[in-house]
């Protein structure tokens, strides 16, 4: 029985706080606003995706009636979907997106675990200050951070990364003009953007690991690695898993990094799926196609999240 049910039971025993569905009224406003701004655009997007909408015909209608008829755009059935699903460009973007999710999430988890272990170590003094400093980047606007990282990975000889390379004796690299070097740059930037969030969650999970378990393991003669594998990891698994799922959703929808770095280039090779849909719609004026791509992306991210919540049993006591 979860804490909440227990809490609810106890509240019920209090005379006038009686159980009533009236409390639903407290939740409805938020739910309504959220649906109005999230679900309605999704429905509208589905609508656009089966028309040949472009700026010229979509905005031709007048006011509210124009919204319902999608302006003068004509119904084309599933043609946009057929076009998109047979386009190699789509499959490239699709593949790159999942690859990005896999690599960036691995990098994020590894880096955050390492950082969290460092700033919770018993041997380190001034941990509070270090932890305060470490979540600093979370307060920076992403658009600023990403533009700065674009400067760091600048192809010019005096970008910070190239200076670092030349300091250790390598030549400079044209980071953003090569497909895979740009991909590496995306990953590093994404990891730097996401680490404060991951570290906060990991640190608080690490602090909840009972000290007695560690002491018992030390008495049993377990070394650092053994303790990490058998005591620390099992205790922090759930929160870290949870953070990983959230952050993989963020990776899947990453838009700003490719967009700011090189518009998903070079030559559209690294267009993550959201960038691909956005550019088809707003750079190439193909609203119908862009909408179809967005719907496909939404379907995948929705399925991915649903699977994770079900499998990861994140909503224990919520879904039953």
């Amino acid at each position: 029985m979860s804490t909440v049910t227990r809490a609810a039971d106890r509240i019920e025993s209090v005379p006038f706080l009686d159980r009533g569905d009236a409390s639903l009224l407290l939740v409805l406003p938020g739910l309504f606003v959220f649906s109005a701004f999230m679900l309605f655009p999704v429905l509208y997007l589905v609508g656009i995706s089966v028309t040949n909408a472009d700026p010229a015909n979509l905005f031709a209608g007048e006011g509210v009636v124009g919204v319902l008829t999608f302006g003068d755009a004509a119904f084309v059935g599933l043609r946009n979907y057929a076009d998109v699903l047979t386009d190699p460009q789509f499959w490239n973007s699709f593949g790159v997106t999942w690859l990005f999710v896999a690599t960036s999430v691995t990098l994020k988890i590894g880096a955050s675990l390492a950082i969290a272990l460092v700033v919770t170590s018993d041997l380190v003094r001034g941990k509070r200050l270090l932890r305060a400093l470490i979540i600093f980047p979370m307060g920076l606007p992403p658009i600023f951070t990403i533009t700065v990282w674009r400067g760091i990975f600048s192809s010019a000889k005096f970008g910070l990364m190239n200076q670092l390379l030349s300091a250790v004796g390598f030549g400079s690299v044209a980071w953003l003009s090569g497909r895979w070097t740009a991909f590496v740059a995306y990953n590093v930037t994404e990891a730097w953007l996401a680490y404060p969030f991951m570290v906060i969650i990991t640190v608080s999970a690490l602090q909840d690991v009972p000290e007695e378990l560690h002491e018992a393991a030390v008495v049993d003669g377990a070394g650092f690695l053994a303790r990490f594998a058998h005591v620390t990891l099992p205790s922090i698994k759930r929160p870290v898993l949870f953070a990983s799922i959230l952050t993989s959703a963020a990776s899947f929808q990453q838009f700003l990094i490719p967009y700011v770095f090189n518009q998903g280039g070079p030559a559209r090779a690294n267009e993550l799926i959201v960038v691909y849909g956005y550019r088809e719609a707003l750079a190439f004026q193909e609203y119908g196609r862009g909408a179809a791509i967005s719907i496909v992306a939404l379907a995948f991210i929705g399925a991915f999240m649903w699977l994770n919540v079900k499998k990861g049993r994140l909503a224990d006591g919520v879904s039953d």
Partner: protein
Amino acid sequence: MLFDAIARKLAGDAKAIAATPARTLRNWSYTVRAVRRGELPASAVLKVVLSTIGATLVVLALLFPIYWILTAALSGSGSSLYTSESFTLFPAEPTLKPFVWVVGDLILPAYTVSAGVPFTDLAVVFQTPGIELLDASEFGVDRPSEFKRFLWNSLTVAVPTVLIAMSLIVPAAYALSRREFLFRRKILFVYVLMTQVGGGLGVALLIGMYALYVQFGINDNKLALAVYYAATAVPFNTWLLKTYMDGIPVSYEEAAVVDGAPPWRVVTEVIIPMSTAGLATVFIFVFLTGWTEFVVAQTLLGTENYTLPVGLYALVDEYSIPWARFSAFALTFASPIMLAYLFAQRYIEGGLSFSGMEG
């Protein structure tokens, strides 16, 4: 009442920070004496010192990009970025000129107020004193940035966002945490699903939203944007605050009820004060949603209504970035948030600990 509590805590924090050097010194001398007396092996101390240095280096390496951009802002021309000199730890000729360019003139002009005295030809003329805090042209800055206009736009977006979102989130979180009602589990499930998807979905939905907003004629409307931000903030923050409230023992409420407090007083006197940390976290997250969002704002707003992030990116040219100005602009824009973060750090950690994650 709530603010009193926060102010007291902040004062406590400030005192603790001020006392830190003295305390550290005392600890050190204590350790040194213990080593001298042979109560503490020197190797243990050395281990701690080395690990601390190592950890500090790790943290400094992580924060290096921020430092790098700060030196760029101070170096005037941005020389540490794209010149033949390589990176230097300190700018050669530090200057605050880029910051002056960002802030621009801070001049309250003098107004002349005249009032005619009735039945006479006399008039009383007042001249209000002009207040000149900063005159950009004195520093050789001719055309300062439009920072102040962007700031105003950002504030008029972020403040309504916070007001709307908090009034939606707080009651819902309370109900989800403490009451049992129809669809409660279903709603929670949807919210958990939407936690991270909420904000990011914006881009995927952008085409639909853009079309809708243009057709309703609200695409250049800051209030409409604020409502949208509030909507995207609802699932994650409601759920966050709910898990936080789950951690508050019910016995406090029961005690209040036994003492005869009506339900609304239970909320204002028990729940709200006890969830300060959760509220602070949610407040900051919601504020940041409106303060830092870029893509939707850039697509929907016209030049007149650009918010700070959009204004910042507008400085970036396709081929060259005026680094000094860019970073001065960005740092001025980000520094209040970073300060708030430093102070609210403990609340954010507490609020994000997911201690009550089991629904």
